[in-house]
């Protein structure tokens, strides 16, 4: 579905400067859930922004369903790391979520229903009429997630989407994400700093090393549907955690 080969991205006008992404190769299958780990500043966000066609890359190739990516593809949703700035302060929470639906051609009634469902799912049903800046940080992040889910994308890019929510809400959102993914057959690229989360969610976990090259790739062979308690008790889970911990440790330049 998504193929990345020899991707290179250098910020700024000088192509010989230090790259943010040096030479990245990987593929993502249809409806696969790929988690991405990597130390801070190793190029994860940059990579996602290249994949999504938001910024041009310096060299290499990205193809999505066989077509090269030159701009944001259809049916893609992106949850940005800087969630609070990606919400529009002049729209209420509800309108922020419903906003992209209209232009995707969703019927007004369907859009309304999808919005309410998403709000409900992230636990903000009673905050629909607030403005984003009237919400706490974690709530804002959940609004950004709700917007992506309500959009029913075919490919979903998430950049540390659960960084600002508490452990309990986080588990709830993880399970929600898995359910939604299953139901609508979404392909997900998920950046996180939490190894457990990466294993729990992913079909595969990639470890990036600065400047973004795939340092390690792990296939997660845990049964689905997953369960917050049972899955994390499997010996395989513990093994994977150990493997990934070592991979990150060994690969990253002391950070």
């Amino acid at each position, binding site marked *: 579905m998504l193929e990345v080969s020899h991707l290179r991205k250098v*910020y700024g*006008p000088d192509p*010989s400067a230090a*790259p943010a992404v040096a030479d990245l190769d990987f593929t993502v299958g249809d409806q696969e859930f790929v988690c991405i780990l990597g130390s801070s500043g190793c190029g994860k966000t940059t990579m996602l922004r290249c994949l999504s066609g938001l910024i041009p890359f310096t060299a290499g190739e990205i193809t999505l369903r066989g077509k090269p990516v030159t701009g944001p593809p259809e049916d893609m949703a992106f949850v940005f790391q800087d969630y609070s700035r990606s919400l529009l302060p002049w729209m209420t929470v509800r309108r922020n979520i419903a906003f992209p639906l209209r232009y995707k051609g969703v019927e007004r009634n369907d859009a309304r229903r999808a919005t309410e469902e998403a709000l409900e799912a992230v636990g903000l049903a009673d905050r629909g009429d607030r403005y984003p800046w009237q919400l706490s940080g974690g709530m804002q992040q959940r609004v950004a997630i709700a917007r992506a889910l309500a959009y029913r994308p075919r490919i979903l890019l998430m950049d540390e989407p659960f960084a600002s929510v508490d452990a309990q809400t986080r588990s709830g959102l993880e399970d929600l994400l898995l359910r939604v993914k299953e139901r609508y057959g979404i392909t997900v690229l998920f950046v996180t700093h939490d190894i457990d989360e990466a294993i729990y969610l992913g079909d595969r976990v990639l470890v990036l090393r*600065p*400047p973004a090259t795939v340092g390690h790739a792990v296939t997660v062979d845990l049964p689905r549907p997953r369960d917050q308690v049972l899955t994390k008790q499997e010996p395989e889970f513990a093994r994977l955690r150990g493997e990934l911990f070592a991979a990150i440790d060994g690969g990253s*330049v002391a950070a």
Partner: protein
Amino acid sequence: MSLEGTATVTSAPRGTARANLADTSGSLRRLLGQRWLRDLGLKVSGVLVVLLALEACSRTGLLSRDWFPPITDTYVELFKLAAGQPLWTEIGRTLSGWGLGIALATVLAVPCGILLGSNATAYRMTRVVIEFCRPVPSVALIPLAVLVYGVGLEMKVFLIVFVTFWPILLQVIYGVQDVDPVVRDTARSYGLPAHARFLRVTLPSAAPYIATGLRIASAIALVLAVTAELVVGAPGLGQSIVVAQSNANLPRMYALIIVTGLVGWVINLAFQAIERRLLKWHPSQRQEVAQ
């Protein structure tokens, strides 16, 4: 402790790196040259389009030849003027009023704007007077200004300050209100004293607004300097226009008007260059730097 820097990356071996560098710096130069050239080309073509439109107007009879001197006469006059020293003297006279006026207006309006933008009581106290004075027409003030300040530089400067003060003031007030609350709280939580908050936080935050305000004001100031000279008869471009007009020297009159416009354009170039330097952190400038 192990929190050393995330090492900067030099992936390629030395030799090739240097080769690459030489190679790319050449293409970089080419790239920059191209961009510069392209911009120039764009500007020239913009001007050409307008000139062609003017030409078309006079061809189709929209602007009659009788009333407009042939545009070529105007150009000839323009070049003759540019070759002589008097034109530059007049420009200098106009610009001295302009410069003093805009500088004084800025120095007055920026602190006032920051005070009024951040202090509700001060704003409410002055609001009526401000809103009352803003629309007072400059032309109506000219005789009063002449009476008090005479016909010289002071009068010009007074008029410019009186008129350009308001646009700058308003832009500053709006700019101050656009300060990000998180930034403001950061400054407060670190206990910055008021003057430091003003200099380090409020002023840079409002800078994009102020920059726009200055560009608006600089053109208004130029217009006003010329108008004052024109109406009162103070030496400068404006008076030259009057003299040319009274002597029915229309090519020169139009040439001088064009000179005024060109002066405005050059001033704006200078402002833009300064803005590019000072505001390179702002999204409006950095989109063109990054990516």
